[in-house]
């Protein structure tokens, strides 16, 4: 049995260099040895399965999200504005957010346009009660506060239209780290909005985000509820060498 020859010929077969002579020789080597025959059958199956493999097409919107993300990374934190940063960060996490944003903007413009039109047609009538009645109910928020080593962080959770929002406020400027954890199969982090000109340092992984304070004070995280009702969220506050943990109270 010539193992080197067998491997060389098998490579040629994988690379499409298997002319009649190569195949005949491979068949001969395989026929002479049962072990080699099994290996050749394995390799033939792999060759059949790997035929036509290549680069995957990109999902819709990913290219645009990448261009946005690398532009932001290249610009550095100084140029970031809070709302622009929120939108960009959200789109990085899930490009469908761009589509959702566009739809929401379109709806808002439509409502304003319709309001102006109706206002013109119904000049002199008091539209305020009708307008107020058309607004969705205000989402109630549930609050949780954690204190640890002089750091205090207030968490406010609200839910609306299949999304969960968590706002983090810290009255003190004590250095601290807040870590939120959740069930990643039920909830997906979509975006982070911050108030100041600079992005707070944060790290994400499936089911987890960690934010540094005081930079993250005033930030708001938005989550997509993958399953109805989302998931419980657990908060941990680390400061001055200690740690305090609690599940966040969720709105009813």
């Amino acid at each position, binding site marked *: 049995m010539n193992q080197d020859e067998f491997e060389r010929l098998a490579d040629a077969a994988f690379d499409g260099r298997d002319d009649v002579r190569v195949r005949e020789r491979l068949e001969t080597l395989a026929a002479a040895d049962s072990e080699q025959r099994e290996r050749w*059958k394995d390799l033939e199956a792999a060759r*059949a399965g*790997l035929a036509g493999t290549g680069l*995957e097409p990109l*999902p819709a919107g990913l*290219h645009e999200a990448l*261009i946005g993300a690398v*532009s932001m990374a*290249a610009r550095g934190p100084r140029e970031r504005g809070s709302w622009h940063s929120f939108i960009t960060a959200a789109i990085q996490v899930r490009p469908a957010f761009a589509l959702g944003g566009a739809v929401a903007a379109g709806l808002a413009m439509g409502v304003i346009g319709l309001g102006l039109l109706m206002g013109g047609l119904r000049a002199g009538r008091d539209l305020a009660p009708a307008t107020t009645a058309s607004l969705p109910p205000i989402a109630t928020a549930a609050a949780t506060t954690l204190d640890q080593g002089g750091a205090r962080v207030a968490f406010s959770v609200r839910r609306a239209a299949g999304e969960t929002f968590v706002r983090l406020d810290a009255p003190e400027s004590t250095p601290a780290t807040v870590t939120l954890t959740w069930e990643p199969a039920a909830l997906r982090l979509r975006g982070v909005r911050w108030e100041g000109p600079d992005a707070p340092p944060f790290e994400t992984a*499936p089911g987890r985000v960690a934010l540094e304070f005081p930079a993250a004070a005033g930030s708001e995280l938005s989550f997509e509820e993958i399953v109805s009702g989302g998931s419980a969220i657990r908060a941990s506050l680390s400061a001055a060498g200690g740690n305090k943990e609690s599940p966040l109270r969720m709105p009813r």
Partner: protein
Amino acid sequence: MGEADESALVLRCQAGEARAREELVTGYERIVYTLAYRMTGDRDEARDITQAVFLKAFRGLGTFDPRRRFFSWIYRIAVNEVIDRLRSRRQEEALDESREDPADRPDVRAERREIAHAVQAALLELSEDDRQVLVLRHWLDRSLAEIGETLGIPDRTAKSRLFEARQRLGRILRRRGVDDS
């Protein structure tokens, strides 16, 4: 893209040229996405990984030496990101043993009748090392020399790893009823 062109492109990116950033993203986005998808078998996760990889790469671009191969550099960032996610996924799966096995679902069974799905499923049964060498060769179209350079191993080792990985993949495919006939 040639090595010299790639170095020039990276230098232009480091100088802050927006057009160069776009070219570099365009040149590598499908490579990173394909690697992430083939290694994890999950398109949503591959999308997230691709974004995380480009963010990390461009945040660290100032420290990249343009004399090195950009492919090897971004590949390393991507593989580390993939391995982190796979580890975190394993921990989650260990915590939730009652989770439904997607392979039991009728729609998935139907999908897997297709060879492409069988290959992906077989790929996920292999070790991360086997998966890497197969993805590099067959999906990212890298030569043995490039595989060796990327993985930091001699060409000959790359060759034997590839041979063994193909054989193991083929064995799984045969078990799943996929062969050359």
